């Protein structure tokens, strides 16, 4: 538990998007997944800075794929969530759920 890190809202979104994408999580797909699921388009700058920060915290890992001609011979940087990352996002989500439980939000049909 001591090794579990606190995560900001956008960090949680990024970690969850990587988990959803599985093996195909790299900059473009992560951004598309976030846009599709949250209806908000993150700027590339915010996304790459967050990915670097998550990697420094040991919550995600990255590896470079093979260079592809479509990208001018540039490799994709694929991301996976570490066990510590999974624990951290699970704890953050449980906290949200405990706070929401039994709470009736005015004007919201399904909280």
């Amino acid at each position: 538990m001591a090794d579990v890190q606190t995560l900001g809202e956008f960090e949680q979104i990024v970690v969850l998007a990587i988990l959803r994408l599985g093996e195909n999580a790299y900059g473009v797909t992560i951004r598309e997944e976030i846009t599709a699921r949250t209806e908000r388009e993150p700027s590339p700058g915010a996304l790459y800075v967050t990915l670097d920060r998550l990697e420094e915290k040991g919550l995600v890992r990255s590896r470079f794929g093979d260079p592809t001609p479509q990208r001018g011979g540039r490799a994709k940087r694929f991301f996976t969530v570490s066990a510590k990352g999974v624990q951290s996002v699970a704890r953050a989500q449980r906290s949200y759920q405990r706070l929401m439980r039994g709470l009736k939000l005015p004007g919201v049909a399904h909280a």
Partner: protein
Amino acid sequence: MRSAQVAEWILSLVTSPDRAASTVGDLMENVDSGGVFWFWIGVLRTAFSMLWREFFDEPARMMGLAVRGVVLELVMMVAFVTCAALLGAVLGGILHLTGTPDGPHPVLAALGWALARAIVWGLVPLQVGCWLARRAPGRELAPCVAFMIFDVVVWGSLGLMWEGAQYSPFQFVVEFLSTLAMSALYMLPMIAGAAWVRRKRMSH
């Protein structure tokens, strides 16, 4: 795509070369849907975000470096003015001894002023940029950001204290923007110096 190489070079100033390459590859995938304009907006926003983060990882240290950079800049300026005054005195003496009391030829005088401007606006900030970058390995450009913030805050505040009471809101905005523009212009050789130190470090 030549512009992709330029974009890669820009991003490699704030991240590792392999990460810069993969980020540019990602942005290139969106060129078909978003266009070249979107590509460049993405490159610049990513570079600024990464640079800003480098600064905010250690803001106190970066501001400390910026203050030391300002002191170094002042020392260099004083040394330059002293050397220029000594040189002027020596040249004046030579002209007097050779019987040309009207002063140097106008072309020589213009060249002298151009050289002085090049030193003040080019060489001094370039050297300060190199000095700052050597003291922040891995985040060479971050102290330059701190220097610019310090520059705008200090000179902006002094300007306001001096003449601020007479400013209308419009004049205030114009004054602030002109201070920012001058500072940005002055920063170009400083960033070039820091970039040079970074490239040299990365090549080893």
